[in-house]
């Protein structure tokens, strides 16, 4: 691992985050009093077994889901104070997303997909930045293609470019390599890594792949809705060993 730029500030944090799904007797506790701070300019991975609450934590941090108790801050904004419209704007202006199933708009070209958030916001696209991002993910000759004309790896590169093109405060990636083979996975993770290294981008990634987690600066381990461990400068082997202990 190359040395990461020094963490300058906390970009997102959850304070005593509690999340129940359902109500009454059937309620399921997904997050049990989680306190977490995501540092800026760093690549954080969240890991844990199925049902550990890792996706819930990410969704709540991203303003896609709301907490039952506790608070989430993005920068200095308390998300619990925002209504749906303000949350939408906040996502548009400050958050980037990468999903497992790419989630591109099939009727728009690759370029249009990348600039979609700006278009939705009615903002001018920062051309030089866009070219730099596109160049980084290596899509320059594919920009006119529709998603259906691209391979899975290429589609996910478009999705990464879309997330980065906004220069968001934070990018959330939900199992970004879940649908890809190992070669394409490596490429995508490499791009995310270099976005952190070269652009100082903050990235939070949910994954259960130890190799993917090894690209991160820091790994948070979740189990039963709690953060049970964390690891700095992880290696795939160390993560795998830690994960195995959940089975005990």
């Amino acid at each position, binding site marked *: 691992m190359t040395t990461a730029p020094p963490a300058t500030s906390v970009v997102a944090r959850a304070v005593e985050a509690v999340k129940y799904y359902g109500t009454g007797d059937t309620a399921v506790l997904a997050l049990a009093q989680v306190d977490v701070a995501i540092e800026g300019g760093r690549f954080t991975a969240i890991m844990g077994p199925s049902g550990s609450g890792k996706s819930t934590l990410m969704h709540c941090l991203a303003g896609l889901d709301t907490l039952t108790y506790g608070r989430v801050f993005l920068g200095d904004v308390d998300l619990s104070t925002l209504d749906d419209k303000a949350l939408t704007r906040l996502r548009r202006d400050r958050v980037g997303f990468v999903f497992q199933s790419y*989630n591109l708009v099939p009727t728009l070209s690759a370029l249009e997909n990348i600039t979609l958030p700006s278009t939705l916001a009615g903002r001018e696209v920062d051309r030089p930045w866009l070219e730099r991002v596109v160049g980084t993910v290596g899509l320059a000759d594919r920009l006119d293609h529709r998603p259906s004309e691209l391979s899975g790896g290429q589609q996910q590169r478009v999705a990464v470019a879309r997330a980065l093109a906004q220069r968001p405060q934070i990018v959330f990636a939900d199992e970004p390599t879940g649908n890809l083979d190992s070669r394409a996975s490596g490429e995508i993770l490499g791009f995310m890594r270099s976005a952190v290294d070269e652009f100082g981008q903050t990235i939070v990634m949910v994954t259960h792949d130890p190799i993917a987690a090894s690209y991160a600066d820091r790994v948070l381990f979740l189990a039963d809705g709690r953060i049970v461990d964390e690891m700095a400068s992880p290696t795939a082997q160390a993560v795998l060993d830690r994960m195995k202990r959940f089975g005990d």
Partner: protein
Amino acid sequence: MLKLALRNLRSHKLRLVITAGAIVLGVGFVAGTFVLTDTLGKVFDDLIDRSSATTDVVVRGKAVFDSAGGDPGESKALRADLDPALLDRVRGVDGVKAADLAIVSATTQVLRPDGKPIAATGNGPPTLGFNWSDVAQLNPWTVAAGRPPRRAGEIAIDRATFRKGKLRLGSRVLVRTPTGPVPARVVGVLTFGGQDNAVGASAVAFDRATAIRRLSPDGKVQEIDAIAAGGVSQTELVARVKRAVGRSVDVVSGQANVQETKSSFRSQLRIFNTVLGGFAGVSLLAGTFIIYNTFGIIVAQRTRELALLRALGAAGRQVFTSVVVEAAVTGLLASLGGLVFGLGVAWLLKLAFGALGVDLPSVGLVVTGRTVAVALVAGLATTTLSAVVPARRASRVAPMAAMRESAIEHGGASRRRTWVAGALLGLGAALMISAAVSRSLARVAFGGVLLFFGAIVLGPVLATLSGRTLGRLAPGITGRLARENVIRNPRRSASTAASLILALTVITLFTIFSTSFGASINAATARGFRATFQVTSGAFQTGGLPPAFAEQVRSLDGVAAVSGIRRGTVGVAGGARAWFGVSGRDIGRLVDLQVEAGRLEALGPGTIAVDRTYADRYRWKLGSEVRTRWVDGSIHPLRVVAIYGNGDLVAQGPDGHLLVDQSVFDRAQPAALRLDNRVLIEAAPGVPRERLRQAIERTGRPFGAPKVQDLAQIQADQSRQINQQLAFFVVLLGLSVIIGAIGIVNTLVLSVLERTREIGLLRAVGAERGKVATTVLFESVLVAIFGTIVGFVLGTSIGSALMLSLRGSIETARISIPIPVLVVYAVVAVVIGTAAGLYPAWRAARLDVLRAITVE
């Protein structure tokens, strides 16, 4: 597999409701039509039973035109009137308990002080005058207050008119009759089987002597009715009366008479039923497009599930059956819903009749087994058949498709599709052009159908085209996304718009035709109308103003020429035909008939004028003798003294082939037809128009204050009538538009469901709910506009070809395209498109972002 089909339905209740909704409306319209006609049939059967069921024997004139041939629709039941002296002979027959005359006039009404009739005129319910009979079995009316009329100057009237005119027993009124105005005192109030009038028909009863004198200009009567003494059968009595009255008149049993009246009324109802049924058929067809489309989308969305079934060992046949069963159950439920809806429709129509003054008495709605059967078969058959093609597609899903990543319906326009569409459109257009040249209506109809289906087949191409062009009108990223959504699956967009295209095509066709027809008629009127004024009786086709009116107008100062126009039936060239009685001396000055040979002024006793069409068809020339058969059966040769080009203005229709002087006409027709339907008047030079108009109006007051109109007013009236008719048709077709809108709702709801993840993504990366909703709304409006434009083009083409093909019968035929009306339709289409998009847009906006993204 049956269980699977049912479970699919149960788990998609909303889709079931929307899909079925389209069929419910169509079936409801069909069922409502049948319920209404059956109910009307029952109402009038009851009316006929009440009026004449107790009569045992009817003596009447012979129907001379009963043979086949002649003009279709021309009344063949016309009969000569009877000499009232026959009554004594009938009464003298052994076994006749009682007998009385029946004198009925259809143009007798009590007038208000300003001369206008109290009861409605025009094409509404009949306005009857008759002789009061003390034989209760021969008289369906009963005296509710006061007493029956006993002597000249006394009348009894129906309670509805009595109340509407705010009359009292003893009130002095003026009654218009076929012989002119009659002053009278109201001495009695009548009810008909407990009702205030006879299904809307008003009634004025006179004593027998006055009735003969006032209702019958020649003192003759229509019928003599008799009842049998105990123990004498109807058949027996008919035989005895026949022996007494001789062979020159017709004697039938009361039963036969009732059956005859009922069946003649039923045949008129059938026409009504056919017209309404045609419109119902259009809505049903619109519904089939929706079923086809919905099941197409469902099958596409379910491809993986179907493929899995195949992989697990289901035969293609079983998959096919499961889809068809699903459609059949939908159709069955929809048909039942449609039946209920149809009852509602019929009930509303019944109310509408009430508002028009036809109070349908306490008869409930009549639902026959036939109605239920037709509704069920229509609903079930259309739904099931429309699902056959999608079901076939489903049965061909390869098991491999289960393994594939996504299974979104593909398909733009294949080359074959374009070829088929091109062939249909080309053939349709060729037929239309040849129809316009050869003036063949059949070719227009056939060509129109080809054109329509050609456009439907070409739909995907047109949808892509209009998505690309129209879509640019929708602004911003939402517009862009909406446009792409229309284009991404042009087949779906096209079949969504299909029902709207159908509705708009028919509406535009009717609109173009009506407006053009109105313009053509007005142009014909402008060209041929030479009179200063026309007085309209308001009666439909036959009957109207007594000859006394025209005579009085003739004697007014400043009148140069006058001719009444009477319509009747005559036997010519092997059948019953319409003919017209005019003033031979004046008609040529009042109307330009484009006389080609001879002189109209020569019309008088023993002569006739014929139009070019008949002259050519029957090889008549000036001086030819035309054998005419009159209502009493006698044959009279009439000499042709004029051949004219066009009699439309006299006939107010296409059947103005024969013209005679009224002196001939009156001898050949029963009294009820010796009335002027219209009177044309020419002012002498230099006479102030308005003063003459006032004088005519004053003259008309005791005759029911008929309308006095100049050319501009006639034209305005004609346009108004045509527009009213058009409005009626458009309202009936409105149901198809609603069905089209349901189609849009249905497709968009399914599309939104299908695009859940895409919408979730848009929301995740920053599209507010409003933007997502707008995208769906735009798509809805785009589809609606697309359907409207294609409908406009099709309707305008077919309507124009129709007008061109009519040049044979209407010389002044012209095409008039009412742009403002079409603009209104377009606006309505946009509004409907927006309305149709509201619900799907709401569903899209309401999607939970998180669930939408994570959905598999």
